[in-house]
């Protein structure tokens, strides 16, 4: 039986349908989840999609982080369930303290929307095992508040423990410290990144399919575990 991967829809989510489609393309069963319900519907992994959940009121992700579904997601993540946060989902994971640091307004002060070159730095996570270490990929990046910040000790620890998952190549698009585009928790089951792999899964609708391994990685990870 195909593993089930849930995608949460918050009020203001934009990329939930693309994420559901990416899960299907990767051979897993997509399951829609709703922010106001704490029921994870028996899923084996969860994706928090991009968008502007709760209108980005207060701070990006600050209010979503306390939604009913997130209570269940946090418990499951701490028990080892794979969780991926993309863009707004990354912001929610940081607000929920499932990942360290925070995301602030781009240093260029404008919304950025580009095909972004990235280097996959860590393949030791549930979401990146189908890449090869050091692989260079191109994935859509679109955000206004994508500057990753954390204190020096945290940054050193992330680097030292191999928890920087993807890094920006070329000019730093948003002021992220150490060109960090995505990170993982200690266990490697929780990953957050600003670029959008779910937009790069089908040659019909994107410039490439470099995003597919995020979703096939977790599908393979879950299948191997069952």
């Amino acid at each position, binding site marked *: 039986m195909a593993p089930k991967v849930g995608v949460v829809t918050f009020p203001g989510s934009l990329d939930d349908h693309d994420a559901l489609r990416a899960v299907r393309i990767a051979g897993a069963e997509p399951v829609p989840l709703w922010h106001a319900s704490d029921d994870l519907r028996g899923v084996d992994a969860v994706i928090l999609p991009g968008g502007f959940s709760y209108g980005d009121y207060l701070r990006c992700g*600050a209010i979503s982080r306390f939604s009913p579904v997130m209570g269940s997601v946090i418990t499951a993540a701490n028990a080892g369930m794979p969780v991926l946060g993309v863009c707004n989902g990354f912001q929610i994971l*940081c*607000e929920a303290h499932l990942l360290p*640091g*925070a995301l*602030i307004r781009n240093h260029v002060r404008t919304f950025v929307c580009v095909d972004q070159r990235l280097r996959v730095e860590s393949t030791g996570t549930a979401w990146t095992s189908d890449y090869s270490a050091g692989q260079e990929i191109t994935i859509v990046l679109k955000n206004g508040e994508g*500057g990753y*910040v954390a204190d020096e000790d945290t940054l050193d620890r992330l680097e030292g423990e191999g928890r920087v998952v993807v890094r920006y190549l070329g000019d730093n698009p948003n002021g992220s410290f150490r060109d960090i585009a995505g990170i993982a928790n200690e266990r490697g089951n929780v990953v957050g990144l600003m670029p959008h792999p779910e937009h790069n899964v089908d040659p019909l609708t994107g410039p490439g399919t470099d995003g597919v391994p995020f979703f096939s990685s977790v599908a393979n990870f879950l299948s191997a575990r069952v």
Partner: protein
Amino acid sequence: MARVVVDVMPKPEILDPQGKAVTGALGRLGFTGLSVRQGKRFELEVEGEVTEDRLADIRRAAETLLANTVIETFDVRVEQPAEAGA
């Protein structure tokens, strides 16, 4: 009803792009020599008396939701009504 004010500011070491944009605009308008950092002010109308316990509660609320202490600091104070001054 008493009012408690919570001020939230980006930490000094955190880049403040909004403050920078405002600083630039002020300079262009001829208001020179001013450097701006932009924060947020929350006004909380509090039912009942503002006791130490109530303030501790509000500090916890500020730390939990109003501020992200990874990137922001906050300050909680009771705002005295103008007529009660002196």
